[in-house]
């Protein structure tokens, strides 16, 4: 919090008689002066980046004339230099400068491997570069426990996995283990909300890549997330519960959107479905587990969330694709309605906003998909805009009523 802001607000509190002048000063004293600190903390970072860039560009422009062994020597010197300087500043207590130098050290390690690869015409068809590279970042993450190293490790592992997938068509198990164990364990220990969310999103993305790599029918991914959702119902109050369950629900929403569009537009005539009976049985098992957990832990109020995982696509066995698509649309409306009802009931402001947003998106989606062909375009946009304005106004008014008149 900004100290200036506290001084400013403190005057108001004194005038209102909420606190005395002395109390206001004591409150302000609790917060350290930090207005200049942020910007000066960034300067060494930019400074070290610029110096690093100058060295790199100088070497790059003379690179061709340097013998391989001398190249290795230069890379080694740069690496040791950055790390040594970084450690020296860290020992002196200059965190931001020390950390930036160490990040330059980590960067030069990876850059060194790449440059040596080019020197020796080496190409690898797996993610070993990123495995080695992210290990260096993980080491500093565990030692320094700084956000910046979390970010560096996450980017190296995440990009490495993406790169392995897009360049070599393969899912790197080693990188997944580094993510699940390395980042996961740190996330678990640190127990910071943002990390928990980032980790659950990252986990979902890796699961997606894994399923694609295995050539498994992607419908199984939906079942996988149903299972993840159900498993977290069994634990009472784990910091990972909400991030993982919400990520699973969001995945379910994405599936529902995709299926709605695909089925109503007949984009894919022969969408291949998983084995119906097996899927249904496993789904029943997972949702049974979820209901059991919810009953035990008193979470029955959010039982409607399970709706998003219901394998409505199995209806294509009896109904046409178009009708099944419409069933998905109806389900999405009901789902957002249930979310709103839950939010009103519990006066959960964030869920209210999410519910309103979802409801508007579903409405717009249905409108675009179904009315596009029938209406003249200008009328189409006009009605669409009015529809959204109107709905938004109603929903927002309802939200205000609920939040203000809560006592009634």
């Amino acid at each position, binding site marked *: 919090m900004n100290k200036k802001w506290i001084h400013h607000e403190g005057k108001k509190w004194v005038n209102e008689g909420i606190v005395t002048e002395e109390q206001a000063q004591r409150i302000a004293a609790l917060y350290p002066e930090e207005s200049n600190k942020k910007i000066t903390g960034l300067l060494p970072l930019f400074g070290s980046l610029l110096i690093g860039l100058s060295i790199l560009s100088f070497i790059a422009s003379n690179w061709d004339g340097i013998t391989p062994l001398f190249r290795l020597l230069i890379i080694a010197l740069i690496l040791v230099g950055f*790390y040594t300087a970084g450690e020296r500043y860290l020992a002196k207590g200059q965190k931001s400068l020390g950390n930036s130098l160490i990040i330059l050290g980590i960067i030069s390690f990876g850059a060194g491997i790449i440059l040596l690869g080019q020197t020796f015409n080496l190409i690898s068809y797996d993610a070993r570069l990123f495995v080695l590279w992210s290990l260096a970042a993980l080491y500093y993450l565990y030692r320094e426990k700084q956000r910046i190293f979390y970010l560096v490790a996450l980017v190296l592992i995440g990009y490495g996995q993406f790169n392995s997938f897009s360049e070599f068509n393969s899912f790197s198990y080693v990188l997944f283990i580094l993510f699940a164990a390395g980042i996961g364990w740190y996330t678990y220990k640190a127990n910071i909300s943002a990390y928990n969310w980032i980790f659950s999103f990252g986990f979902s993305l890796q699961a997606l890549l894994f399923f694609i790599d295995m050539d498994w029918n992607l419908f199984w991914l939906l079942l996988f997330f149903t299972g993840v959702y159900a498993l977290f119902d069994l634990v009472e109050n784990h910091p990972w519960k909400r991030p993982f369950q919400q990520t699973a629900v969001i995945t379910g929403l994405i599936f529902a959107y995709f299926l709605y569009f695909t089925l109503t537009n007949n984009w894919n005539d022969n969408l291949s479905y998983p084995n119906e009976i097996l899927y249904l049985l496993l789904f029943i098992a997972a949702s049974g587990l979820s209901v059991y957990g919810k009953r035990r832990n008193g979470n029955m109020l959010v039982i409607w969330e399970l709706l998003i995982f219901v394998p409505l696509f199995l209806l294509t066995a009896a109904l046409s694709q178009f009708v099944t698509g419409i069933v998905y649309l109806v389900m999405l409306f009901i789902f957002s309605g249930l979310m709103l009802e839950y939010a009103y009931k519990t006066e959960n402001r964030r869920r209210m906003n999410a519910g309103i947003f979802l409801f508007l998106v579903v409405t717009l989606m249905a409108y675009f998909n179904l009315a596009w062909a029938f209406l003249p375009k200008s009328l189409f946009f006009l009605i669409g805009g009015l529809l959204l304005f109107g709905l938004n106004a109603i929903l927002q008014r309802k939200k205000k009523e609920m939040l203000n008149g809560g006592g009634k």
Partner: protein
Amino acid sequence: MKKLSWKLAVAIQLAVLLLIAGSYYAADMFGREIAIKTKPVDPSDILYGDYVILNYDISEVDTSMWPGEWEHNDKTVFVTLTEKDGIYSVKELSKNRPDVDGSDVVLKANAYPSWNGTKDTIGLQYGLERFYVEDNTGKALEEKAGDLTAIVKVAPWGQVKLVELKD
């Protein structure tokens, strides 16, 4: 403790760099030299800044050569090469590293589904598909990249090293 551990971490990173360089010098010293022919690459623009893409006679094989049923999920394969008139070509593919004698050599490859214009084939990547060039010297090489002989060293531990390209 902290002091020791960071020095160890830096030492490990240096060791990794040394190992990469060292293994390639070792491949040079202990490796067996083979020659393979290049062939034209599909994308016409094969000069990617600082390297030229290479395609070899051994980079594509018929799906019937695959041991058993060709599955796209099987990615690693061992390719036995045999020599004729100084040039090596594919003799067989196997899932485990085979024992060979005489002048035959085994390369590990990354297999992927490919298409030769008329039928499905298996593409094979050996880690020899890039040749890094000095700035602005790639153009001349690019024009003849489809008809060169590549000299490759194959180390006893399976590592391959592209040594040079000859006309």
